């Protein structure tokens, strides 16, 4: 008790302020509640938005620096050839390229159901995928890799046999054949933006496809800007008047998605900020009432030697105290709500990002600032009253 007394004694303005806050408990509690709501609104909305973006980006996969080259409408023949792949490789310099072959097949189930699957021919699967179970053979000439989703659906595991009814276009005609592969590895599921997404597909060595036909070439660059430049170079190499290749730049899409998320989040946080504005008004109201009720008391303080500035300090300390208490109550509440959102969207309540903490911190800062700003006018009004008038009652 003595220690506590001494502590408060070190901050006399806060001693007076604290006692005044406890004088009208309900009123102070309501003012604090308004700050809590504001802080929670900014913190939880902002941090929740970050979690939502994380969740969406997780589904979309890594986005940004890849470009995809397809055969264009004026291409003759109507697909990319090995020579085209070489040209892309030459034009793009040091950037990694991933030529992809593609085909369709049908899996016959035990109970007679038939499922269409996509078949990918990939030169170096290690570069594209993460293995979940089994191994990609060192000599990638036979065997098949299946995605986790397909493996779970079909009960496949490494070593199992996989029979595919393939239909390939050879020399302009559709040729069907029944092929059996041994599953070498199960691949982890990937996000939607993954090149040759493995989830429900079968990945085969390129030798299992027609030699000279490529579905697309993926060029992996360092960043969005480089991707832009590379796309321009590839266009220059292939397209003069005719559109021999189409290029899909992921960077543009990534930027647009990023921007959209940022705008939506800003809008939501703006709504949260309005609630803090209301909180600031409520603080101003509470302080104004308090200052009017304590008019004589403030007059006494002025009479016994308190400067205008001292009165301003005492009342601002009171507003600050309300804001700090409200913010300190609001911050854990905002974090708890964010944890709930994290749990729902990211399957991990503790998946807080720096951005999420940033929003909660911003909420706390705004909460305190709103209180101080709300307290300014009442404090100034009380401080400038003449003591003689105040004491007259």
């Amino acid at each position: 008790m003595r220690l506590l007394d001494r502590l408060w004694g070190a901050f006399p303005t806060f001693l007076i302020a604290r006692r005044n806050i406890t004088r009208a408990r309900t009123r102070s509690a309501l003012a604090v509640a308004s700050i809590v709501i504001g802080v929670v609104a900014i913190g939880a909305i902002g941090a929740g938005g970050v979690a939502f973006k994380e969740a969406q980006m997780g589904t979309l996969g890594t986005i940004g620096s890849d470009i995809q080259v397809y055969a264009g409408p004026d291409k003759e023949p109507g697909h990319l050839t090995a020579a085209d792949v070489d040209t892309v490789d030459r034009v793009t310099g040091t950037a990694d390229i991933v030529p992809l072959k593609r085909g369709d097949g049908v899996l016959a189930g035990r109970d007679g159901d038939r499922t269409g699957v996509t078949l990918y021919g990939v030169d170096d699967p290690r570069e594209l995928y993460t293995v979940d179970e089994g191994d990609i053979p060192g000599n990638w000439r036979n065997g098949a890799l299946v995605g986790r989703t397909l493996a779970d659906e079909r009960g496949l595991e490494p070593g199992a046999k996989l029979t595919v009814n393939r239909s390939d276009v050879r020399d302009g005609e559709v040729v069907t054949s029944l092929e059996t592969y041994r599953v070498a590895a199960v691949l982890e599921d990937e996000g939607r933006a993954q090149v040759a997404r493995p989830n429900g597909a079968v990945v085969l060595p390129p030798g299992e496809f027609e030699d000279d036909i490529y579905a697309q070439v993926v060029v992996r660059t360092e960043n969005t800007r480089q991707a832009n430049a590379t796309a321009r170079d590839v266009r220059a190499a292939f397209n003069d008047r005719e559109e021999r290749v189409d290029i899909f730049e992921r960077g543009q899409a990534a930027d647009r998605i990023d921007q959209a998320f940022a705008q939506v989040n800003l809008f939501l946080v703006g709504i949260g900020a309005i609630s803090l504005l209301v909180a600031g008004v409520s603080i101003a109201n509470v302080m104004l009432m308090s200052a009017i009720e304590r008019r004589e008391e403030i007059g006494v303080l002025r009479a016994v030697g308190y400067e205008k500035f001292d009165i301003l300090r005492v009342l601002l300390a009171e507003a600050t105290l309300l804001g700090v208490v409200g913010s300190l109550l609001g911050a854990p509440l905002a974090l708890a709500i964010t944890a709930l959102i994290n749990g729902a969207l990211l399957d991990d309540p503790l998946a807080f990002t720096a951005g999420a903490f940033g929003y909660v911190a911003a909420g706390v800062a705004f909460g305190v600032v709103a209180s101080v700003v709300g307290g300014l006018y009442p404090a100034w009004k009380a401080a400038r009253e003449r003591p003689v008038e105040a004491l007259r009652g």
Partner: protein
Amino acid sequence: MTAEPSAGVPDDGTRASDASETDGASETDDGPVIVGEGVVKEYETGGETVRALRGVEFRIDPGEFVAIVGPSGSGKSTLLNVLGLLDVPTRGDVRLQGTDVSTFSDTERTRRRKEVVGFVFQSFHLVPTLTAVENVEIPRLLDRTPAATRETACDLLDRMGLADRLDHYPDELSGGQKQRVAIARSLVNDPDLLLADEPTGNLDRETGDRILAEFERITDEGVGVVTVTHDDYVAEFADRTVHLVDGDVFADPAEAR
């Protein structure tokens, strides 16, 4: 005591030099605490000018107990406010320990008020959220000397016979106890002038006696005490009684009629 900053000195050169001549330490100790000459105070109320003080003279010496009596509306409170530097006269000279108060800035007046003047307000004006000892500490609360302030406050309350009421809140104290807390508060800064507005109003005779005895002790320490009162008993007790009628001062009530 130092010379006042020139910014606050009025363009009346003689007054400024007067102030510096009398501005010495010995003057503070032996000379009058506060002197007024031709003090006029006018108010604007509803477009009408009210003359609350019509050129009054006053002089309070250290250790003197002066009672101001007079009917309500005679300017007693205004005079007390002028004495306590809460109000500045419209015209006339007021010198606090030899210094012309019109040379003070607002901030300076507040500082001098804190150093020199102790107030005992009419209805006590204790802060309800603070304990007795905290109420006594108020004038020095912002001085950042909590230990020394607490000691002084406890001593003063002890002297007022309230050593066992330190941590009581005002609503837990009787009227007489509150008044004694208010007196302790007025003494915490070791003032040279104590101003009391109706200090025994609403108190029974016994409590009133106790308060008067306290005032006597304060005057023995060299503090000038000025009290505004309706109570003849207090007036009889005083060294000197000043009658205020319609803003004019009379030493003898007969003169007023």
